């Protein structure tokens, strides 16, 4: 029995952001549809030394983690500050957005965002020198 009251159903932490992957194969509508169903999160502002184990430990607090893919510098193939976290269920990913986003991992405030789904190649930074595009803030400053 839901309250049917829009004014009370606020769940702002799980809303999809303005970011859209420019390399996404498909149109805006398709991307948004995937984002709304996704159980994959993009995680940014990681330290370059943050390990898969640390990410696992933190993100397991909202549910069973299916897979973690650490983001790599395209040239050096070393960690460059982001990763993807896949859950088995959307509900667990939502709780991560509500309660893990904006808290600290390895002393840094990390940011999570919905991702349309990992595809081979997306683990590489898209910046000119191989790392992420001009600081890891692109996801939270651009408006598409």
């Amino acid at each position, binding site marked *: 029995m839901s*309250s049917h009251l*829009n*004014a009370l159903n*606020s769940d702002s*932490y799980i809303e999809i952001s303005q970011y859209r992957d420019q390399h996404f194969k498909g149109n805006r509508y398709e991307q948004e549809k995937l984002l709304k169903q996704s159980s994959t999160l993009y995680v940014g502002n990681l330290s370059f030394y943050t*390990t*898969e184990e640390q990410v696992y430990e933190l993100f397991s607090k909202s549910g069973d983690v299916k897979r973690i893919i650490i983001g790599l510098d395209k040239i050096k193939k070393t960690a460059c500050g982001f990763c993807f976290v896949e859950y088995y269920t959307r509900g667990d990913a939502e709780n991560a957005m509500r309660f893990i986003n904006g*808290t*600290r991992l390895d002393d840094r405030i990390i940011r999570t965002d919905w991702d349309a789904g990992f595809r081979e190649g997306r683990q590489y930074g898209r910046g000119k020198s191989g790392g992420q595009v001009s600081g890891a803030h692109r996801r939270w400053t651009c408006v598409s």
Partner: protein
Amino acid sequence: MSRRRHADENDGGQPHKRRRTSEPVEIEDRLESLICRVGEKSTSSLESNLEGLAGVLEADLPNYKNKILRILCSVARVLPEKLTIYTTLVGLLNARNYNFGGEFVEAMIRQLKETLKSNFFSEAVYLVRFLCDLVNCHVIAAPSVVALFENFVCVTQEDDVPQVRCDWYVYAVLSSLPWVGKELYEKKDVEMDRLLSQIDGYLKRRQKTHVAMLQIWSAEKPHPQEEYLDCLWAQIQKLKKDRWQERHILRPYVAFDSVLCEALQHNLPPFTPPPHSDSAVYPMPHVIFRMFDYTDAPEGPVMPGSHSVERFVIEENLHCIIRTHWKERKTCAAQLLSYPGKSKIPLNYHIVEVIFGELFQLPCPPHVEVMYTTLLIELCKLQPGSLPQVLAQATEMMYMRLDTMNITCVDRLVNWFSHHLSNFQFRWSWDDWADCLTADPEKPKAKFVREVLEKCMRLSYHQRIVDIVPPSFAPLIPANPLFIYKYEDENSSTLPGYNAAITVGNAIKNRASNEEILTLLKDVPNPNHEDDDDEGESFNPLKIDVFLQTLLSLAAKSFSHSFSALAKFHEVLKTLTESDEGKLHILRVVCDVWKNHPQMISVLVDKMIRTQIVDCVAVANWIFSQDMTHEFTRFYVWEILHSTIRKMNKHVQKIQKELEDSKEKLEKQHQKDSGDEEDMEEDSQLEEQIERLQEKVESAQSEQKNLFLVIFQRFIMMLTEHLARCETGGTDLNTPWYKNCIERLQQIFLMHHATIQQYMGTLENLLFTAELDHHILAVYQQFCSLQA
């Protein structure tokens, strides 16, 4: 009515003065917003806002009555922390429009029936409370509420019903009295006395076997962990002694008394509680969590006593705020901190106590554990000068009382504290806890610190932990999570299988296939046989050692590397673990090589279950095996076991859902059937599928039942052995090991109670029989009493 947007369609007046004709949907949204927001921070007084809103709603009644009714019924149900604001509003509306008042009351009763039938018992309590408070607003006549209460209390006379059913009806009456006790007593004191006396009688005769299982601390001091109905009864008794004078609840209707007392009242239609049915799931009993009293808040307002009704109301309201806003952590923190009447109470202490109360609630917290960590962090951000100190004080208190804390709660405390510290650079006054160093390392305080440091390390790295604790804490620092390879170097060249390990290692590095590896492994002798009298197919522990140790050593770099390795050589692993002994041995090897890295053990076991290299029962048997005796009280072992049980449960649920979906599909198809051959063909295909799924469900449930049987059997064996040994040796049975073991048994029941309920018949017949030692049987009886 279309909305005119464009300026050029302006009828000549200035745009902001032009009256826009809005669509009904917009008006409805506006009404919703107005109603939901009343009582929030405003430049005008609450009374003036309520007055204004009542006027607006009254004017909208002709066109939007049903919508308004629906919104008000909803807020009554889902915003209980604003109860008196909305009852005042309804009171004002009733004073202006008697018929509307009557319709509202009827709608509420209908809603109450529905919520009870749908097992939404918390919300039903809020509805009852709302109806009671309407007496204070002159909407409902007191005698009709007394009549409602009399019907509720009659439930305690019903035969053959679960105690938890009667509990709920008694709770609904008692928990409404802080709001309406005074009025009811003024009008119907004789009837109320009779009611309370009946309740007293019921409370005296009801069973309280469940309490021991639900208490967070087993000690009575400093704060007894009271059963919730007992505590509420004491609070109501005290309120009655104080002649129902209650000063904490915010009552906006008092300001409107002159208007409201002119209103005509309605009578509640007679309400019979819906009869008990098998599908009813009543709320479980709980224990009131108390960690603070008036001696704990050093300055400022005094904390209301544990049996004061103020304490009850404050805690109720804070719980309701969390219930409403849990998804929005900033709003939740802000709402908690702006609790009305906060200047008269040590609010930070109440908030911290309520939050930990929820976090430690048995069997389960109302919300996901990580929510509480993040909420506390938000609260610290909003009150940086005061809340962190209260939190530190609370942590210190809980540390002091670890000896009697239920192990499930200790687990949660470890998780909370380590995660919290990781957000604050792990700053803590560890020296204050130096007493844990001299005590027995198996005692709760030392174990707690060890497990906290272990979890802190998982969120950081080994050297960090070394750096953050004083040197004296070195014995409690977790091991550096390094791989232990049996065939590491030439020193191990005399070990059996050493040469094979080198060969296999090289083969893996040269990208050998599964078949090639299996061929290589054929040459590994079986220490269990004199000579290879078979094809080398039977269980050969040395083969598993050689292969798995080497594979995992090559893949030790990260979780991903190890997962890849397991995936690549899945075939080899499946072959090696065909037998139950094989499955057990593979788990043994994983634990041997990664002994220093429990987190890795957990994720590997998880992966091996999901890829069916081992099954759930193998994991259970492994945990209770001799090899794991020294790890038996480690936190990670129980994390693995519970995760394993959860996987089993999810597996069963998944197939059950597939079966349900197929059945529904068949239903729909039957409805569309036109009787021709194509339809018959489709139907029979679906029917076959349903039959197959039915078998799958039965098989999965059988596996699930078996898993619980194995676990309980092993517990019983271990505990019985210990108890027997202590009896013959004349030693005290209450060792740290025993406390851990018996509480872990309780934990199985608590954390999976819904699933275990299904198998109670079997459990009682096969395992939890009367011959069992009463210490063990008591746990089972406590579990049964949870829904009795």
